């Protein structure tokens, strides 16, 4: 089973454009990343620039409207994520608990949908998707 561990740092919704994590925090997190990697559970990981550098596109009746960050009404925003391959939700939660998180941070654990989770007719409709994913895999691996 694949799980996303979504890092939600409270206060990041107000971070200025160009804000960077401190080198010390990065070093601590890197040790954790390495433990995930050594256990063979880590599939992907990334950090995100502050929302003040991002945009939101809302669709109403199919019509897109672009709003620049920061998103002042947002009480929580994503700071980064890990994608892990584990045997159960419990194992995913155990990994999340080992994260060197600060008091202002929350890690949300969410199961990733697999192709096999969809009913047969939906799988048929989305038939090309595994092929496409295989292509991304190759691109990432190259």
């Amino acid at each position: 089973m694949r799980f996303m561990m979504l890092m939600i740092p409270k206060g990041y919704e107000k971070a200025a454009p160009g804000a960077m994590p401190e080198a010390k925090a990065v070093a601590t997190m890197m040790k954790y990343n390495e433990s995930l990697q050594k256990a063979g559970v880590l599939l992907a990981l990334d950090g995100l620039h502050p929302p003040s550098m991002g945009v939101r596109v809302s669709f109403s009746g199919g019509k897109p409207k672009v709003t620049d960050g920061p998103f002042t009404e947002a009480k929580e925003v994503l700071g980064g994520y890990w994608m892990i391959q584990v045997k159960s939700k419990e194992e995913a939660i155990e990994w999340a608990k080992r994260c060197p998180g600060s008091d202002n941070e929350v890690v949300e654990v969410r199961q990733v949908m697999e192709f096999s989770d969809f009913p047969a007719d939906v799988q048929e409709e989305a038939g090309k998707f595994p092929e496409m994913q295989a292509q991304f895999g190759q691109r990432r691996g190259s």
Partner: protein
Amino acid sequence: MRFMVLVKADKSSEAGALPDEKILTEMGKFNEELAKAGVMLAAEGLHASSKGARVKFDGKKRTVTDGPFAETKELIAGFWLWQVKSKEEAIEWLKRAPFDQTEVEIRQVFEWEDFGPALTPEIRATEDRIRADVKMAAKPR
């Protein structure tokens, strides 16, 4: 530049409803366009938050709360990872997405160059090792 495109959850995705055939067909076409243009790096959907959990940190203490997380308006239902030349290009792609009624967030992904000299050679070496290994592991199952 890489961008993460975050699709928000709504009542239907949180109820565990799967997308219908029409949406799947349209989204399939859009995904194919992204793939053909070399923009698409990853695309994933997430199960409803009722199947998830949150971990809060307080010093060494950890508090686990089971989903659903009805109180937040910021829940995510899925995401893409795109490789484009600019934020504007990411916005242009997103405007073409076959969404009817939703909000989607575009966020730039940190690259190692972004950290500049703050990133010590030791950290960088560890990170390169992790990423090389992760690329191997990221092959689809």
